[in-house]
């Protein structure tokens, strides 16, 4: 095949439609290709007739009859053979007509012909690569008209046809143009339809994760995961704290947490009162959150992420996904200072692999805290995450928590010796946040820390730290100090020489001072996750309490969620904690039901270990007790 054959070809004179009338069967593939080349070449000499006919075929998209489909397929195939003749300036109309074809509207034969053309285009000329990649990325999501049937079997089948082909086309292009993946990652990150409707964003995200785990994953992994976290954070910060926050500083941190919202909602309805759930400074009302479409979007995206993480873990890839995830957490989430939900992605990843990922996360946070090169708010944010993480993650072993606490205690002790001075909330912010972190973790884990034998000397160091001139007990959050002192006294660890009379204040002016503008004194990032699907136990409820109406005001028609509670099985609620001063609490009937609930949780959940064993055992080989339903503020005046 050489140039001469082309010149001698006598199909030059025929129009496209004439050929069509004769029936394409009469022409060989090469004749068709020559005709197309001819049409393309004549544009520059002014003869646009065949060219325009060709463009017309590409534009004719609605409700194609079978012969029209055949025409489209044949034209696409002929074009594939003529790609080197396509110029991106002269044949701009043709190119734009090709690129606007949406594969979701067609059957597999059109898809295949189109993709062959796209791949050939991309390989033939560097100028086309970016446009071809953009076209493929825009096929990640269905057109608006398709949205209605997305959930139906035919929609699902079509989705599978399109996406499998798109991803294999991307792989082919990467094989032929080795630098394409870097262009692709830029294009994919830029085109995230973050403000589109929820189903579209979710499909797009699924595609991003499919790229990450696919054949060209190694080139795209870190950018895809980074873009994922960025998207989550963008949605996260859009959900305003202020809209929903009820600033009631008289409530304590350790009061009853919203873990059984549905029950409370039910209770409300029975009462017929409009009493909204107990509001807590850092906990958002589910009622108001439910209607928030951004929250719903974020929730769905997090579920997609969780499911992806779970499948990564199942295929043994969690570690290679975890590192980029950790990087993007450090760069994006940690610096966002008041991220509400996105951090639970890390929580879940750690829960899937406590020994590696769980430890790695804790160590990273501790490293950031002690590293002098990082800016102050960054380090304080890290310690808030660490404290909340160590308290709330039920999959962390006591020795690990103890070793983290050891680092903190050592650091604080060193600080007292070298930089100690008079009490000054603003100058010693880091120190106060470190002390508060230690106290907070011990509030949750007092018993298990006492049981770790080698930790005892460090536990004893806490007293001199807290009684130092810097007076952390006066500066840290009063409710935490209060709870800690009570637990520490009951555990015979520490007796505070002064009487602290906080009047059950949550915060004080000192704590505000050390917390600074970002209020990092009151930042507990792993407080109960209030996004419904990520956290929920809805299926659990329907199994164990059949007549339960699930009357949570935010509930849309609840379809059985395929995955049972992502976060909840790994999470420590305050009610699960047995502080040392509550040893004599009895077991009520209520708790029997509660325990059944929890036992079934551990049977059904993916957590391999018994989530409660770290809390209950006190070393005396007591039969595993029921998690007593404690009202932590046991003094009568509390709410």
């Amino acid at each position, binding site marked *: *095949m050489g*140039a001469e054959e082309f010149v001698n070809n006598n199909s030059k004179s025929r129009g496209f439609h004439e050929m069509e009338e004769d029936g394409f069967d009469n022409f060989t593939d090469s004749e068709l*290709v020559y005709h197309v080349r001819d049409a393309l070449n004549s544009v520059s000499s002014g003869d646009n007739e065949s060219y325009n006919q060709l463009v017309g075929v590409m534009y004719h998209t609605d409700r194609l009859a079978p012969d029209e489909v055949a025409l489209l397929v044949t034209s696409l195939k002929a074009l594939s*053979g003529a790609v*080197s003749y396509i110029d991106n300036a002269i044949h701009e109309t043709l190119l734009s007509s090709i690129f606007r074809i949406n594969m979701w509207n067609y059957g597999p034969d059109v898809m295949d012909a189109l993709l062959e053309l796209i791949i050939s285009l991309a*390989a*033939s000329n560097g*100028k086309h690569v970016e446009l071809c990649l953009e076209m493929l990325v825009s096929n990640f999501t269905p057109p608006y008209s398709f949205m209605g049937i997305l959930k139906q079997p035919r929609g699902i089948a079509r989705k599978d046809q399109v996406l499998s082909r798109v991803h294999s086309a991307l792989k082919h292009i990467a094989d032929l143009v*080795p*630098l394409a993946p870097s262009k692709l990652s830029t294009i994919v990150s830029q085109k995230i339809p973050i403000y589109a409707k929820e189903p579209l964003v979710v499909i797009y995200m699924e595609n991003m994760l499919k790229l990450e785990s696919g054949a060209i994953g190694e080139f795209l992994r870190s950018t895809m995961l980074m873009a994922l976290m960025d998207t989550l954070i963008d949605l996260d910060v859009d959900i305003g704290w202020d809209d929903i926050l009820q600033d009631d500083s008289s409530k304590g941190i350790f009061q009853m947490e919203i873990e059984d919202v549905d029950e409370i909602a039910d209770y409300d309805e029975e009462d017929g009162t409009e009493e909204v759930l107990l509001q807590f400074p850092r906990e958002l009302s589910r009622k108001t959150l439910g209607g928030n479409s951004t929250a719903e979007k974020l929730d769905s995206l997090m579920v997609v992420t969780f499911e992806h993480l779970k499948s990564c873990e199942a295929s043994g890839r969690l570690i290679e996904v975890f590192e980029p995830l950790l990087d993007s957490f450090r760069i994006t989430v940690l610096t966002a200072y008041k991220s509400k939900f996105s951090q639970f992605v890390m929580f879940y990843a750690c829960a899937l692999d406590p020994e590696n990922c769980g430890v790695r996360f804790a160590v990273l946070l501790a490293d950031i805290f002690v590293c002098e090169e990082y800016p102050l708010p960054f380090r304080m944010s890290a310690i808030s995450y660490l404290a909340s993480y160590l308290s709330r993650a039920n999959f962390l072993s006591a020795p690990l928590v103890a070793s983290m606490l050891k680092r903190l205690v050592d650091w604080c002790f060193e600080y007292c010796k070298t930089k100690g001075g008079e009490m000054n909330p603003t100058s010693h912010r880091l120190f106060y946040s470190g002390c508060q972190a230690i106290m907070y973790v011990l509030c949750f884990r007092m018993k298990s820390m006492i049981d770790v034998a080698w930790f005892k000397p460090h536990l004893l160091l806490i007293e001199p730290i807290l009684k130092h001139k810097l007076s952390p007990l006066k500066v840290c959050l009063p409710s935490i100090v209060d709870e800690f002192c009570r637990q520490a006294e009951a555990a015979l660890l520490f007796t505070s020489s002064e009487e602290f009379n906080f009047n059950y204040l949550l915060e004080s002016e000192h704590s505000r001072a050390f917390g600074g503008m970002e209020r990092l004194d009151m930042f507990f990032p792993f407080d109960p996750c209030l996004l419904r699907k990520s956290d929920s136990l809805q299926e659990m409820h329907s199994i164990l309490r059949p007549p339960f109406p699930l009357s949570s005001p935010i509930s849309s028609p609840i379809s059985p969620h395929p995955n049972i509670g992502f976060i909840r099985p790994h999470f420590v609620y305050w009610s699960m904690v047995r502080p040392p001063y509550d040893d004599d609490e009895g077991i009520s009937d209520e708790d029997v039901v509660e325990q059944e609930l929890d036992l079934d949780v551990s049977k059904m959940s993916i957590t391999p270990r018994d989530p409660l064993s770290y809390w209950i055992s006190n070393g005396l080989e007591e039969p595993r007790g029921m998690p007593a339903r404690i009202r932590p503020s046991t003094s009568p005046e509390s709410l």
Partner: protein
Amino acid sequence: MEGLKVSDANLVVYVHPSKSTKVQQAVLRELSSLLFKFSENFDGVVLAYDFQIQDKIAKILPGFHPYFAVRLKAKLLLFAPKPNMLLEGKVVKLTQTSIHVIVLGFSSAIISDEDIREEFNYKIKHGDEQFGSRSHKRHVIKVGTVIRFLVKSFDEEILHISGSLVPANTGSIRWLARHLEEFSLTERSPRKRGESEGELVIQEQAYSLNNDNRIKKSKKHRISEES
């Protein structure tokens, strides 16, 4: 293979003050951002670098951000294909109308059928697509073959080469190496070509790739080329 060169460069890298304790790392990072991109300064795509910091003392830039200027002496491996150079690459895809090649693992090249000389004929043999020579039965190009081709043009942005198999000394490397001797002798006689217009006389250094590692001295060849 032509198009590769090693250049010495005196570079200045501006480092942010926060990296003053990790200068080596900062310089590496900065130089890495040059990789696999065409640089006008160096007139080529930077493939690899090696550097030495000249001075422990660096000048601090006046201004808002006090970056400091680290002077380096660097050796850069550059890829700068120009028209009419001969390159080698591996065939990754063959169609009736084109051959797709990848050069040095990162640069994609395409040879369209009008730039493939008459000698080669597309056929499908045992299910594999290939271009076989009509005059030399053993000269075959298929997926996986390493071929030598002539550069027609080079797109600096996407590092995409448009190539040609028209000159007689292009084709499968393995075959060319074996037949280089006899090949270069017959080369002198003008080959039959369709409408060839114009000739180009170029200086060429031919390398043989067989184990003997003989390097031919430069020869002047007449190579017919379609303009």
